[in-house]
């Protein structure tokens, strides 16, 4: 059976989404267990795939039995072998946590919610696993459309924020499609590996240059890379916490994966870093992204929105790291995809718990929270330390590699930006700690309660949170193994 893992990875969630959709009409209580089972199978096969990749190297799976470039094929190498388990496990954990939120906020729509949730994970897994440039576009649209649906279900402003996201997301996806069209017109192929084989004689072509620029702009729009980030903060803030807990950790990270995939596999580093040689400019753009993200986060008096700006800054980390053009920088960027997905999940789960209990996430609502929700806030501290980059949490190690890469590439601006953003993160999170720890709890009418009664979130929300929080430390402790056994094989030979 294990040779069918690549197919199962995508097919099981897809078929289960359909079953969930039917179950929603028959008995709503069936939806959640089916969704958990589906994502469980996906997580199982993604971990299985990772171990197979470690044993055997690149796995090629031909869909429909047609060999590429005629048909569509999956390529699973070290890069997506690493990203796949992250996507499926993050989705699974957030799913378990979302049960109570769904019951609280829209109990009647549990069926369509879980359908869309599982479909979105299908799309994300498909994006990561596919080896066909056009197939990636279709899966990207699945992930985006379901994402719009999930995000729009929230506060009053959510639909408007989501509609803006939809405009930007459609422009981004269409740019990607156009870029693929440009590659197709000069090479005649759609398979990523095949395009890479056909491209070298065409490196000087204007069409290839335009294709690269358009693809990159499209992907940057999707991942909210500064200055194309304007849609992200509102869309993520006003959404319900079950959806933002899925989309905030995964969507941007998966798009960063797509960018690295385009650079490494489709256009090849030789074209990007030698022929084109614009990487310095992009790194500077990343510097601005990091600084602006940090400064804008500082301005917010609202926990969830503050976190969304941190997401924007983190995108800057990864883009900058990938464009440094050296081994350490790329290692840091790949490692940061894993770490940032976990860190963002951790803090967004915390926000989910807070919203579930307090019904608000502005700074004013956080007063006395350490007394009220000690376990949730305990996990929040771990997540915050990891985002700041304190050892032994994993955030430290990816930042370490990024700084190392910046020094090797003589990009001191990037190094300074990383340190500056860590400093700002310290300020940001300690401000939240201060409000939560020292200021007494008060309810919405302003009556002060002494002492605050402990009202912790239910166990189904705390267990996933603690799994993530502990994994933050474990991933940190095993960073060396991850780098030695997986990440170093991601980087192509001959890369500095």
């Amino acid at each position, binding site marked *: 059976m294990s040779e069918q893992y690549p197919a199962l990875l995508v097919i099981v969630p897809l078929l289960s989404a359909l079953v969930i959709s039917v179950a929603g009409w028959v008995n709503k209580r069936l939806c959640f267990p089916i969704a958990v089972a589906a994502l469980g199978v996906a997580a199982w096969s993604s971990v299985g795939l990772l171990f197979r990749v470690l044993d055997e190297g690149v796995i090629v799976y031909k869909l429909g039995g047609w060999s590429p470039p005629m048909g569509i094929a999956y390529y699973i190498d070290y890069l997506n072998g690493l990203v796949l388990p992250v996507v499926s496990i993050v989705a699974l954990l957030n799913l378990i946590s979302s049960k109570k939120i769904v019951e609280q906020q829209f109990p009647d729509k549990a069926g369509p919610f879980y359908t869309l949730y599982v479909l979105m994970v299908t799309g994300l897994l498909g994006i990561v696993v596919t080896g066909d440039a056009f197939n990636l576009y279709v899966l990207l649209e699945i992930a985006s*459309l379901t994402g719009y649906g999930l995000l*729009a279900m929230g506060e009053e402003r959510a639909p408007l924020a989501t509609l803006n996201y939809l*405009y930007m997301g459609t*422009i981004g996806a269409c740019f990607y499609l*156009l870029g693929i069209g440009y590659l197709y017109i000069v090479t005649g192929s759609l398979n990523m590996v095949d395009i890479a084989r056909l491209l070298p004689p065409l490196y000087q072509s204007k069409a290839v240059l335009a294709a690269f620029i358009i693809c990159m702009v499209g992907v940057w729009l999707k991942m909210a890379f500064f200055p194309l980030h304007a849609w992200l903060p509102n869309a993520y803030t006003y959404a319900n916490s079950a959806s933002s807990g899925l989309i905030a950790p995964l969507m941007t990270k998966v798009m960063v994966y797509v960018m690295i995939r385009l650079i490494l596999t489709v256009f090849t580093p030789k074209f990007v870093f030698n022929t084109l040689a614009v990487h310095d400019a992009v790194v500077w753009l990343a510097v601005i992204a990091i600084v602006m993200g940090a400064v804008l986060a500082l301005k917010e008096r609202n926990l969830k929105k503050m976190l969304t700006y941190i997401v924007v800054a983190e995108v800057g980390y990864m883009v900058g790291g990938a464009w440094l053009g050296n081994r350490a920088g790329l290692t840091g960027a790949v490692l940061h995809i894993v770490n940032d997905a976990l860190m963002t999940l951790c803090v967004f789960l915390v926000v989910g718990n807070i919203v579930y209990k307090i019904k608000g996430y502005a700074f004013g609502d956080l007063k006395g929270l350490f007394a009220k929700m000690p376990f949730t806030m305990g996990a929040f501290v771990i997540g915050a330390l990891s985002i700041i980059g304190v050892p032994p949490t994993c955030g430290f190690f990816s930042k370490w590699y990024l700084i190392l890469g910046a020094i090797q590439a003589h990009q001191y601006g990037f190094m300074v930006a990383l340190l500056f953003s860590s400093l700002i993160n310290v300020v940001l999170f300690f401000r939240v700690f201060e409000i939560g720890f020292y200021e007494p709890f008060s309810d919405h009418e302003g009556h002060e309660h002494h002492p605050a009664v402990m009202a912790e979130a239910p166990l189904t929300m705390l267990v996933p949170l603690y799994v993530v929080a502990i994994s933050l430390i474990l991933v940190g402790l095993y960073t060396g193994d991850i780098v030695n056994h997986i990440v170093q094989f991601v980087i192509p030979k001959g890369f500095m």
Partner: protein
Amino acid sequence: MTDLISTVVAKYNYWIYITLMMIGLYAMIAKNNLVKKIVGMNIFQTAIILFYVSIGVKKGATIPILEHGHGPDVHHVVHAVDYINPLPHVLMLTAIVVGVATLGVALALAIRIYNNYNTLEENEILTQVREK
């Protein structure tokens, strides 16, 4: 000069697709009405489809449906030059479907916004948001 004219004429499909795409893009960025933006989005998407279909065109070739598909001479030799490139058509069928799916979702969102704010003009909505 004749060189320029010949390039312009030889690729006028590409110029039209760029024009349409820019019209759509401009509408998406600059228009104030949400439904107008959605119209712009659709024009933008169809422009890309036009581009792909233009890739597939082949001089002196016919539509990609094989003649004598069934019958006595099923196994006559098919020459690739006689038929238009089918691959872009396949891709664009998918893109059209994605377009209509996006349209449905966008309109659903627009209706929800209208239910909340009773207007479709973006600046009027933003004023209402700020007043709250």
